[in-house]
């Protein structure tokens, strides 16, 4: 749905500049979480390096082959901060100087998922079904002009200039995974129903050089003020492979199709959620402490986001990212305490967006009976701020 608010001004050329203003403000370096927002996967503490190798409900997001290794009905819920940013605009409307500062944002549920081995309700049937709701893209930036007004030219300024760009992308995924007979090759696929809410608004009061609001004239400018939701459908598929002789080495590969998202104006749409190719490898070392059941996992992962498309305000270009991480699983009185450390990076060439990179830390706890797990992750991106996740898992 497109809403417009109209202001009348005296200068015809302002009509042209108003549209250009969208691009001007987008020079801000907002951390690019629009297409790769992590919903709380436990391996995020290891830089996301093991995202494609997991065997829980997050497999729906990263690699549905991992569903195949869910051996008990499992439910998971994750909660994390939804980062936002605040930008200040100085200079002029045509040639602004923009400074952006990230904020942690509020804590919200980012993932709810369940994975059910089919044999639990239908004997002799193989495979595991997974269903999940996940937030996979977030942007929340508000840009403010100076109180004195943002010069527009011709003696006209925009007083109380404000621009809000807000996007949230959610995936509802139904996945299926299973293994071959030997159990060393898992494959899976999923159907994604993507929901997206987009808001793009600008507002301000046009004033002349005496500070008097301009309320009429031959030219009329419409500040965009649109807010809409859209739905699209995509597919995801993946593989996990281990040699029969060496289950301590695992490879994973997944593909997600770009997802078309109809709706939105030319100024404020995010019309295609990019597709993704993800590949990773994990290596496990066992028996690190004599008499204990410790093991150590090191992983590497790379992802390539392609085919995304958006308006100038939500510009999408191909992105390349990687993660490196380690996870030490400490055996503590038969309870398991994974300790994670990682580094992740995701570039961004899109106008107004900045790369996301930094060091992540994680710790978890699974008691001896293995029924539930709790995992905490802390990420400190280079651009500042901090992100925190908490993920709870219960296995029936």
């Amino acid at each position, binding site marked *: 749905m497109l809403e417009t608010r109209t202001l009348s001004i005296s200068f015809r050329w302002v009509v042209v500049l108003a549209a250009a203003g969208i691009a001007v403000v987008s020079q801000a370096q907002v951390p690019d979480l629009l297409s790769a927002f992590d919903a709380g996967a*436990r*391996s995020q503490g290891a830089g996301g390096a*093991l995202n494609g*190798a*997991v*065997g*829980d409900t997050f497999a729906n997001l990263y690699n549905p082959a*991992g569903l195949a*290794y869910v*051996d008990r009905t499992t439910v998971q819920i994750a909660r994390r901060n939804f980062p936002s940013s605040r930008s200040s605009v100085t200079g002029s409307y045509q040639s602004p100087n923009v400074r952006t500062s990230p904020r942690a944002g509020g804590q919200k549920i980012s993932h709810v998922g369940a994975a059910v081995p089919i044999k639990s309700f239908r004997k002799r049937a193989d495979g595991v079904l997974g269903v999940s709701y996940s937030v996979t893209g977030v942007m929340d930036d508000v840009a403010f002009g100076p109180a004195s007004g943002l010069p527009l030219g011709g003696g006209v300024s925009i007083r109380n200039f404000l621009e809000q760009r807000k996007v949230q992308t959610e995936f509802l995924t139904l996945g299926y995974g299973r*293994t*071959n*007979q*030997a*159990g*060393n*090759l*898992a494959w899976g696929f999923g159907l994604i129903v993507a929901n997206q809410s987009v808001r793009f608004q600008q507002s301000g009061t046009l004033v002349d050089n005496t500070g008097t609001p301009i309320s009429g004239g031959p030219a009329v400018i419409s500040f965009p003020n649109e807010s809409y939701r859209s739905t699209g459908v995509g597919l995801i598929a993946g593989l*996990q*492979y*281990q040699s*029969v*002789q060496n*289950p*301590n*080495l*695992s490879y994973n*590969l997944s593909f997600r199709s770009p997802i078309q998202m109809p709706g939105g104006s030319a100024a404020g749409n995010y019309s295609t959620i990019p597709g993704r190719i993800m590949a990773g490898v*994990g*290596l*496990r070392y*066992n028996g690190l402490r004599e008499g204990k*059941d410790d*093991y150590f*996992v090191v*992983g590497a992962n790379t992802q390539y986001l392609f085919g995304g498309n958006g308006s100038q305000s939500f510009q999408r270009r191909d992105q390349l990212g990687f993660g490196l991480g380690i*996870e030490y*699983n400490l055996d503590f*009185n038969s309870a398991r305490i*994974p300790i994670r450390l990682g580094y992740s990076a995701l570039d961004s060439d899109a106008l107004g967006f900045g790369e996301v990179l930094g060091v992540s830390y994680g710790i978890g706890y699974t008691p001896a009976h293995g029924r539930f797990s709790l995992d905490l992750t802390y990420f400190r991106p280079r651009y500042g701020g901090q992100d925190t996740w908490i993920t709870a898992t219960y296995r029936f």
Partner: protein
Amino acid sequence: MHALGLSLLLATTFSGAHRAPTLADWRTPYEQGLSLAGKSDWAGARAAFLIAVKARPNDDTRATLLPGPITERRTWREGAPYSANLLAAYCGVRSAAGLTDKDAQTALLRLVASELEGLYTRKQAGSNAAFLLAEVYGALAENDKRRELQTRLVNREWREDTAIIAPEQIAIVSPGNVVNPNPTPPVEPNPNPNPNPNPNPNVTPNPNPVTPAGTVRPLPNKYALIIGNSQTGVLDSNIPFAADDAGLIAEELAVYGGYPKENIVLLRDVTSAEIREAVKLLAEKVPLKSTVFFFYAGVGTSVNAKDYIAGTNATSAIDTANMVSKAEIYDAFTRRESMFFAFYEVKRSARTPSRIFGTEDVSAGPYAELQATVQGGGITSVVRNGKPTGMFTNAFVEVLREYRTNQIPLLSFAWSMFYKGGTTTEQTFVLPTIVLMNDDAKF
């Protein structure tokens, strides 16, 4: 190029040609073997284990890793060792016991013996394989081989899958019962498997990792009174697996501890009167200067600085009307000049310190007393053969199997139990209290 590589990977993975044996090739028959053995279909179980052996020829003491997420180390059957050869041989022995054709029986036992010898050759024989092979030699009247076997070293560190193995059942196949009319040649007891018990808790005692194979010769002067009371009226102190633990201790003492079966009195879920009666009868039966082993699992308490064990009819921790005092039991046997060894699997986490069992010093002697946990500690369990078993009992049995002697050195034994797994957040094993005995007293 990459697409070609991926295609090859998929093709070789899915293809059945020239493939290495997979998990399913041995796992399915192995688990079928366990299932069939559980139904006493020994011939079927042996056939299934032999199929597993074809796919995976070597027994393995280590846990078998299963494919799965790299972040989760999954092991087959909770980390059980792979012992297809041993279990095939064991099922062969059990199967042979049911054969009426003596020639077929002998042929099968010879085949089993060769399989077990193969395990020795490949250094994949643990104490169960050694024990089984000794019994098979006995059944085949190959006493020279049996004696020679006892001189070989057994790798006590080699874990074996004992899910279906019941050593006392192996003994049923022993000579005299089935094949060999000759009596079982006695196995020399290991007089001191750990001649240098080390009082330093930081140093693992029992440096000798080997033990002779074979059945432990029972000694006629060894007696045991074993009591397990799972259900009493002292509800919050009950140990639900106490009766099972008592049964296990009784079985194991007969096989590995040199206690004659007829000298073992096992009581499960009995009243205080029944305990008194059993004490009285056994004390009358015990000759002077005998060795008496006493084990009690259940509720214990202390009232007015005297220790009591509860009968099933006990109603509270402070009412001793339906309990038996520890001193009464000790006195009955020490009056017979017996060496009295008492083992208790009793919770010692009473809210009131004065109620904690095991604080009374009985004036009788000689005796030794070993509690399952420190003061304030509880009793925890582990899963053994699919059943909850007291951690104390489990360690007792494991160490007893390792010592395999009719002269068990108490202090060394207690240290070995401690190192076997005597510490959790709730339960911590202790060393024995020894009164008027030497530290190296043997039970």
